[in-house]
């Protein structure tokens, strides 16, 4: 066990615990805040594994923007404070699906790599950049087109509603 292993285990435990709390919490806003901890912990996992670019992008995009939007929406609708109660059937179903996914993913990983430890040697930032903007540039551009289409549609939806209001 190196110090990196210990660190990874610690960050992983925090992430997992925060994820469980996010799912089981009855108050939606608290769940959102636990999600922040969980996603931040995931960024920590990436960092320990040496994928710092992914870690920082995770922090910047998911924690800094996506969850902020989620929390913002919760505050806007004022639904963050109330308690959410799901039926036991729902809970058991969710727990079953979660456990099944865990077993499936864990089993696949163990089957693929076995139990022995492996060196983590991810590519550096430069390599990732070259791959994205070289080999994978077309999919990347296609993705940006998708985002652009979504943006234009959002604007269209927002403005057409307005004009109808004004006409009425």
């Amino acid at each position, binding site marked *: 066990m190196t110090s990196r292993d210990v660190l990874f285990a610690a960050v992983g435990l925090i992430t997992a615990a925060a994820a469980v709390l996010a799912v089981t919490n009855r108050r939606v806003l608290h769940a959102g805040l636990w999600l922040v901890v969980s996603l*931040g912990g995931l960024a920590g996992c990436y960092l320990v594994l040496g994928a710092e670019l992914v870690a920082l992008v995770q922090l910047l995009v998911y924690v800094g923007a996506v969850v902020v939007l989620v929390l*913002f929406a919760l*505050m806007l609708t004022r639904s963050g404070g109330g308690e959410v109660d799901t039926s036991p059937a729902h809970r058991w179903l969710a727990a079953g699906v979660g456990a099944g996914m865990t077993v499936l993913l864990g089993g696949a990983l163990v089957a693929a790599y076995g139990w022995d430890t492996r060196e983590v040697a991810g590519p550096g930032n430069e390599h990732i950049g070259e791959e994205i903007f070289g080999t994978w540039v077309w999919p990347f551009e296609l993705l940006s087109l998708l985002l652009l289409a979504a943006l234009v549609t959002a604007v269209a939806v927002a403005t057409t509603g307005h004009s109808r209001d004004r006409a009425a």
Partner: protein
Amino acid sequence: MDLPLAVEIILKAVVVLAAFLTLPLAIGQTEHKVMAHMQGRLGPMEAGPHGIAQLVADGIKFVQKEDVTPASADRWVFKLAPAVALIPYLVALAAIPWSAAWVAADVPASLLLVLAVTSVGVFGTLMAGWGSGNKYSLVGGMRAGAQLVSYELPMVLAAASVAMAAGSLSLTGIAQAWSWWWLIWQLPGALVFLVAAVAELQRVPFDSPLADSEVVFGPYTEYTGLRFAFFLLAEYAGIVVMSLLFTVLFLGGWSGPWSDTLGPLWTLLKAALVAILILWLRIAWPRVREDQLQRLAWLVLLPLALVQLALTGVGVVVWG
């Protein structure tokens, strides 16, 4: 200079913490004085010569005050919010280089790190807005959330432009690649970054989340004592971090005459000038209305940042 790793880490941590606790106070004191003189006043004069210890006195006052948690507050969210607002700036300060050698945590993608951790600071404001159980806080928190998300994008794009020009994500690398003509080449980006930084700090003219005439004091309305002081400290630490970041990205950091020996002083001087500019805006300009604020971000800053990116791309291809 071969120190054991542990000693070096502890030493660096102490130095960063000391800078984190003193530089914001210096900014705060400067704000007191500059604001006072810009309004034809003297500012604090009683605590120490020319009121030099005013903020220390304020700190003592804050410590003595009762730490009130409102009955309808979301207790833990309310109590943790100041720390969440404060700590990201501490991390960011550690990653910003003062000169090629003077950097506490020299990580390869330090620009991304600083931008990422400062974006986490939003949660402090959001948590405070939600946790206070006060409608003004909630409105202020929502305004802060909307504002910070909108201005994050132009800010990151402007920073990306510099990173592209330098061909590096490391702040040290960017500052080393800087040369004086970047002042003109990266000017639109610098303006976008400065405006977005002021908006991220929720300073005038972008202080509508805290607008005292509209939402009392926004997310900080219910806070008292030390927790309130932590929010203030976070605000001024934010000014320190943003000024240093602007200096390193757009003003060449430590470059200047005799930068080998005087490098950190150049950084400090430039950052101080940027900080005073940020303070100056608060004194000179009125508050921007909420809808104007969003228009500015999406209709002015974002296109400008994109134009800057294109300009940088062309420049890198032509000269690079």
